């Protein structure tokens, strides 16, 4: 690794080492325990009748026939659940003027999108519940669907939901001033209108929940495929009026999440109520079609943007108008406005310029809601910025690399505040770009490109610099009134045998959270990592915390574990000093043994534990034998720890068919201290593939009536192994000084810039045709249209 290990460099150090994941062996043996796998005694199954219309009024519901069908235990409507569950609204206080229709588990009168759950059926088996759902007769009165984003914004437009006064969920404006004058005097102006399609997370394991209300104890246990169990403990407690300590949320193995599994879904809230009504465990697992029409979608932006440069090619200003359509209401509790907010604040983030103006309009429509999904807002801001930079380079006569070298924030210019208000502690854009240039053999690629063009082969090279938001502080949700923790907690104990048990609030969805936490703790004790057992994902067995989202697992969770481990180590050494009649400062730990300053072994951790737990009678009366510690940590200092980097994409365009072959992709990224390079690299690659999916394949397509027309995995294209290139990863390490660990997030970096690099690469390939595209996904049809072929 590049960075010196310094104070973290301890005997048996695991920080920075590519160790494999202990929990992965279980998954490889088919012994994963996902919510979809769980069975409880007397468990029932829920299915939902869903709205066939994008917007309609519920006139009547006739469930008499369904109630009499085999195995049916309960049929519940919106009114039945409304008696138990308090409604919610997806707004945040610090988004001034934001509005959204109140939500209940099932609607009372109005359905807002095609696929919305309307009636719940609980039966002995899922098949019986589905059979009965088909026998329910619901009479709907169709209402005009709001589909087109421009029509939605007309003053006399139909409303997407009766409960809102108009279709603007949220709007805001940033303006540093004088923009019109700067553009009027600029030597070069480039502008474009960009279209970003809707896509969705497509976790391989669909959403799954198993709620178990035990009236005899007044206790609710929810096994929930989520990344944020504490958030849901709070929500189930407040909306169903159950004391928080009587609500347990367990998130065992989770089959993919990517931000999608941290939002409140109507069916999930309903299942809790259904369990209370039945007095039995009730399980709901979305099938794939249900996932497509009820999981959050993401993106869906139209951005008009322009960039001004002076005669020397220096970026002077950006002017941006982002319109994003989010569905009929804002998701709860994080809202659907965060993405647009981040889009306008991440614009131009890697570049040094002072003047900026942006307008954001977040608009309701009758489609499933959009909300936070991997790299919230990043791909939009990055694609717009980087495409404009490439266009500016062409206009001002620069190579794309040289214009970036000229305008990226210099590595020595930090701390730096962006014109949108983000404070950057220390980034490495210039170093990253220089590294990428060598890594991808940029000059050779250009030479090859020129030679091949002569033979009718059209290759393109695209670059995209990026910043990624990680380690969010309380400024993110807390100040908006959402009960979402910025802090994380760890409870760390020495077992009587001298092993370590670490219960921590950050969760595991396959990133390797448990592994890196184990590495950090083992490192501080100088013991083998097999001696550390990490426990996550259970509100009853781990302390409260934010859990894993927005790339906070390593940066915040890791720091929490590090500080907790130091605290416990201090206690162990203090007790050892008592036992040895030595001074704690003269002792250290190596290989599970307390050593003195000369390195001589004095007493093992296991022996200290044995004495503390079983022979405290041999200790002095005032000795403190605290071999369990609890520690919480919240980010202090900068509001976010920004990760940065740059990506390169190499493609070949078949101008006759519009097909693009992705030849290779490169990433240089700087996530500060790397705890486990093996895990970081494959996280970045996974992120890149999701970004390339957005660039070329993935789009949730609706017709003019608001019907999703490609809600299956045969119709919605997800990147596959045969379409993806080898992805080369390199790292720069600029640890954040805000924590002892120095780690920043890495999980969203790949997604943040991959589609931007691909967009630039395809446009580069199309340049000889005088054609360009400003829309993703870049489907063959769209490319042929851009080329004028069709």
């Amino acid at each position: 690794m590049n960075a010196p290990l310094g104070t973290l460099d301890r005997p048996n150090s695991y920080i920075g080492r590519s160790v494999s994941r202990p929990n992965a062996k279980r998954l490889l043996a088919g012994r994963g325990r996902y919510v979809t796998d769980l069975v409880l005694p007397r468990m029932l199954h829920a299915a939902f009748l869903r709205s066939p219309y994008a917007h309609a009024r519920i006139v009547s519901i006739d469930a008499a026939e369904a109630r009499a069908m085999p195995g049916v235990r309960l049929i519940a409507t919106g009114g039945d659940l409304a008696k138990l569950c308090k409604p919610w609204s997806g707004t945040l206080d610090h988004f001034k003027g934001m509005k959204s229709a109140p939500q209940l588990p099932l609607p009372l009168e109005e359905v807002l999108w095609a696929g919305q759950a309307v009636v719940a059926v609980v039966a002995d088996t899922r098949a019986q519940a589905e059979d009965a759902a088909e026998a329910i007769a619901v009479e709907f009165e169709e209402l005009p669907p709001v589909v087109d984003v421009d029509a939605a914004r007309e003053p006399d437009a139909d409303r997407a939901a009766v409960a809102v006064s108009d279709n603007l969920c949220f709007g805001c404006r940033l303006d540093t001033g004088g923009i019109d004058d700067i553009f009027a005097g600029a030597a070069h102006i480039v502008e474009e209108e960009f279209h970003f399609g809707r896509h969705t997370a497509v976790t391989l394991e669909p959403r799954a929940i198993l709620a178990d209300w035990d009236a005899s104890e007044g206790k609710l246990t929810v096994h929930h495929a989520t990344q944020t169990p504490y958030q849901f403990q709070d929500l189930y407690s407040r909306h169903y009026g159950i004391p928080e300590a009587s609500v347990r949320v367990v998130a065992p193995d989770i089959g993919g999440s990517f931000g999608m599994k941290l939002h409140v879904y109507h069916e999930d809230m309903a299942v809790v109520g259904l369990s209370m009504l039945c007095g039995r465990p009730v399980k709901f697992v979305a099938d794939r079609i249900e996932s497509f029409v009820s999981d959050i979608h993401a993106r869906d932006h139209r951005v008009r943007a322009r960039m001004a440069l002076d005669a020397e090619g220096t970026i002077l200003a950006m002017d941006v108008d982002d319109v994003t359509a989010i569905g009929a209401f804002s998701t709860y509790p994080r809202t659907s406005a965060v993405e647009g907010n981040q889009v306008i604040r991440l614009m131009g983030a890697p570049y040094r310029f002072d003047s900026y103006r942006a307008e954001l309009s977040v608009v309701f429509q009758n489609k499933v809601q959009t909300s936070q999904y991997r790299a919230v807002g990043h791909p939009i801001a990055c694609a717009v910025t980087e495409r404009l930079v490439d266009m500016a380079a062409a206009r001002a006569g620069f190579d794309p690399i040289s214009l970036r070298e000229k305008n990226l924030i210099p590595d020595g210019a930090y701390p730096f505040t962006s014109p949108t208000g983000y404070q950057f502690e220390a980034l490495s854009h210039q170093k990253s770009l220089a590294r990428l240039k060598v890594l991808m053999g940029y000059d050779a690629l250009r030479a090859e490109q020129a030679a091949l063009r002569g033979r009718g082969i059209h290759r393109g090279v695209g670059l995209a610099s990026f910043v990624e938001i990680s380690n969010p502080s309380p400024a993110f949700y807390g100040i908006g009134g959402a009960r979402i923790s910025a802090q994380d907690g760890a409870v760390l104990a020495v077992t009587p045998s001298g092993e370590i048990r670490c219960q921590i609030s950050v969760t595991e969805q396959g990133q390797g959270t448990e592994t890196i936490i184990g590495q950090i703790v083992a490192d501080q004790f100088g013991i083998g990592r097999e001696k550390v057992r990490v426990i996550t994902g259970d509100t009853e067995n781990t302390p409260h915390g934010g859990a894993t989202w927005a790339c906070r697992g390593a940066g915040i969770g890791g720091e929490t574990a590090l500080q907790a481990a130091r605290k416990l180590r201090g206690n162990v050494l203090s007790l050892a000093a008592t036992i040895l009649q030595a001074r704690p400062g003269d002792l250290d730990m190596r290989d599970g043994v307390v050593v003195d300053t000369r390195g001589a072994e004095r007493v093992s951790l296991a022996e200290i534990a044995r004495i503390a737990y079983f022979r405290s009678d041999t200790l002095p009366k005032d000795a403190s034998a605290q071999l369990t510690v609890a520690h919480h940590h919240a980010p202090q200092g900068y509001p976010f720890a920004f990760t940065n980097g740059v990506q390169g994409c190499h493609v070949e365009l078949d101008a006759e068919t519009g097909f693009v072959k992705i030849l290779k992709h490169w990433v240089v990224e700087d996530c500060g201290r790397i705890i486990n390079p093996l895990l970081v690299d494959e996280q970045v690659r996974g992120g890149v593939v999701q970004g390339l999916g957005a660039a070329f394949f993935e789009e949730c397509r609706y017709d003019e009536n608001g019907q999703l027309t490609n809600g299956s995995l045969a119709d919605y294209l997800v990147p596959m192994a045969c379409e993806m290139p080898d992805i080369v990863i390199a790292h720069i390490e600029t640890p954040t000084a805000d924590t002892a660990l120095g780690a920043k997030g890495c999980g969203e970096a790949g997604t943040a810039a991959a589609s931007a690099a691909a967009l630039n690469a395809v446009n580069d390939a199309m340049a000889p045709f005088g054609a360009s595209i400003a829309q993703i996904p870049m489907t063959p049809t769209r490319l042929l249209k851009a080329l004028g072929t069709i």
Partner: protein
Amino acid sequence: MTAAVPVTLTINGETLTRLAEPRETLADFLRRDLGLTGTHAGCEMGVCGACLVMLDGVPVHACLTFAVQAGGGAVETVEGLSESAVIADLQRAFHERNALQCGFCTPGMLVTAHGLLVRKATPSREEIRDALSGNYCRCTGYEAIVDAIEAVARRRAAGETAAAFLEEPA
């Protein structure tokens, strides 16, 4: 139509008879009736590959196969393949290379890899990527999976035999 009928088949070497509704898929039968939850249901239409199992020595989609269709056949799931250690070297290579994250696609990936290497001992990277074209992974970038399968093909070609995987220290 929904009345259960007896089905006799061999699962992971054990011959058994159970009642199954004609409409019950092999995936549901394995997961629900037999508790073999290693076989996962992702798309339930034969696209994502999470449900792949070996049926009479060939990878098949358990979500597209009715349990009654498998009657008289021999099914091997990831549990059986693990216990017989025939995929131990694949499992080890996936583990070493971190060729999985959430693990939901992993049993299907292992079945595809096993089927491929039975069919072709030393496939190229392109052939491996092509063979995986029926297996979605949403977490990794696929590259580690390709690397792991390629490594196993090379190790097998060099005469390395599969040893136990699960008992090795993590």
